């Protein structure tokens, strides 16, 4: 039906390179015809083009950028709700306090440690399990379903589950299993008090490994198998195939899952809040900020810490955007 579209009345003009699908050579049209079509699609006017975009764009700007600008303003103010009469301009005082305060420094360290450990361990485990699931075997569908279950538990519920049903020193599953296996004299560690940060890391790794696994598995299954087949026929070992063919293909999937995971783990609040309430040296920046403004009501200092988080996140985000961009170019080829 598209062949009898009239293209006569259209004045010739430069073809905008952005016109979608103009390079479609499978349709059998001449380049000139295609160009005319593209022009026609582009002609409808810039405003009719922008109109569908604007509601979403304005919505996002108002609700994410404005609050952040306000946070920056407040970060330069003396503003504690408990001392309203002292409100005023503070210059860089809040930032100085953020960088000299040992609690904040500890929160920065915890955030980095938590993110690196959780994302690193989840990535390695996710990759190993994805490789296990990338084979045909009996019950693969069931195993995959079992594997993704942790990711489908509401984060607060997962944190509660780990804290009370697994870690509890008196009746948690871990110590219960120790007793069931080693008898009455089995060691009964207090998991959370002994290693509070590791306890949070373990619960988060449990929840994030399935996420890594799902994306990596999708990546593994998009491999061109005939090339792998050819390599195998030529006598390449499984390890050689993995190192020289699978890993390079998987690179962008590993980056994508790692960076998406990092964005969420940096912001983790639920687990720290539920498992330790930020105690025992486990307060990360989101929890620290929550506490500073919600409990201590120190708005200026909380805002300064918020700005610091954003600057830190921008560093990760730049890397993330670059990855997304490379995927995206792939997408547009």
């Amino acid at each position, binding site marked *: 039906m598209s062949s009898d579209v009239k293209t006569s009345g259209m004045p010739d003009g430069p073809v905008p390179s952005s016109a979608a699908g103009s390079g479609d050579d499978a349709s059998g049209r001449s380049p000139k015809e295609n160009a005319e*079509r593209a022009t026609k699609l582009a002609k409808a006017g810039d405003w009719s*083009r922008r109109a569908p*975009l604007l509601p979403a764009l304005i919505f996002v700007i108002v609700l994410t950028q404005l*609050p952040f600008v306000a946070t920056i303003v407040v970060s330069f103010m003396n503003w504690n709700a408990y001392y309203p009469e002292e409100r005023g301009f503070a210059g860089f005082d809040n930032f100085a306090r953020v960088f000299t305060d040992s609690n904040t420094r500890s929160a920065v360290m915890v955030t980095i440690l938590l993110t690196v450990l959780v994302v690193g361990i989840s990535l390695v485990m996710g990759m190993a399990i994805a490789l296990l699931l990338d084979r045909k075997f009996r019950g693969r569908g069931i*195993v995959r379903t*079992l594997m993704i279950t942790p990711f489908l538990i509401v984060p*607060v519920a997962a944190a509660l589950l780990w804290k009370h049903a697994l870690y509890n020193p008196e009746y948690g599953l871990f110590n219960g299993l120790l007793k069931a296996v080693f008898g009455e004299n089995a060691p009964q560690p207090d998991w959370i008090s002994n290693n509070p940060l590791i306890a949070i890391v373990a619960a988060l790794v449990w929840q994030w490994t399935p996420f890594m696994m799902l994306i990596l598995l999708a990546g593994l299954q*998009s491999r061109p198998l005939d090339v792998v087949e050819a390599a195998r026929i030529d006598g390449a070992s499984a390890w050689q195939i993995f190192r020289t063919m699978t890993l390079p293909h998987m690179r962008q999937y590993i980056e994508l899952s790692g960076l998406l995971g990092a964005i969420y783990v940096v912001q983790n609040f639920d687990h720290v809040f539920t498992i330790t309430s930020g105690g025992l040296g486990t307060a990360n920046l989101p929890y620290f900020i929550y506490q500073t403004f919600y409990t201590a009501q120190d708005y200026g200092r909380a805002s300064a810490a918020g700005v610091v988080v954003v600057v830190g996140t921008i560093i990760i985000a730049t890397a993330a955007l670059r990855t997304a961009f490379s995927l995206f170019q792939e997408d547009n080829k």
Partner: protein
Amino acid sequence: MSTTARTSHPEPEAYFKDGARVAHPDAPRQEFNHHKSPKSHILLTLAAWLCGLLFALPVVWMIITSFHKEEDAATNPPSLFAPLSLDGYRSFFDAGPWPPLLNSLTASVVSTILVLLLAFPAAYALSIRPVKKWTDVLFFFLSTKMLPIVAGILPIYLFAQQFNLLDNIWLLIILYTSMNLPIAVWMLRSFLAEVPVEMLEAAQVDGASLTVTLRKVIAPVVMPGIAAAALICFIFSWNELLLARVLTGTVAGTAPVFLTGFVTSQGLFLAKVCAASFVVSLPVLAAGFAAQDKLVQGLSMGAVK
């Protein structure tokens, strides 16, 4: 070739294409295991099953415990075969979870609908007839996702306090919409980019307006993408704790807020905590199991298909 000699499948004959040795095109497209010996196949299968069971164990344990009596739930060593009981669920539902569950449902469903209504036209403007600098706009959307919620929560709190919007479900709905909108735009764009341009031309020739084109031509084609985006938005809204905890209270509190308050205010009852965690997770579990493939696409923002 000794590793391939023991396969359970017929070895595809090697044949040459463009001077390179490749698998015979008629050979069945086997997955990655047919060069393994049966023994290592069994070992790897066992390892896979073990991983699946280990990862699911805490959830299975949660479900078992939720159906035990309190005195059987909190024993050491664990009593797996204690008599079943609905006490945990009874005391959870006695604690009045319906308003928070309904708040969660309202916030998640309404914000998901709002997200789709806003994201779908935006994705259209970024893919099919893209505006100028559309890549910049797309990356702007994505970059807002990387702005931590804590960086803006204080002004939002102060604003809500000023205008009496604290403990108001609509504030939460609006915030969840802005939280999920960037992901939805990003995902839907990658699905819309695959709509064949002929279909749009046909609609244009027939004189269809933009709304009609979006609704009647594009929407049916990208339904899987819309479903994936909706699923992800629903899950993220349902799971959210920080905003809900700071901005809501007794009236508009959501299920995650209820869960946290529930443990601290009433002391610890393990069966009840497990029942509560299971009930609150149930919608996400059901949605996630039902749409596993869409989940992958959604989580990777449509980048992985």
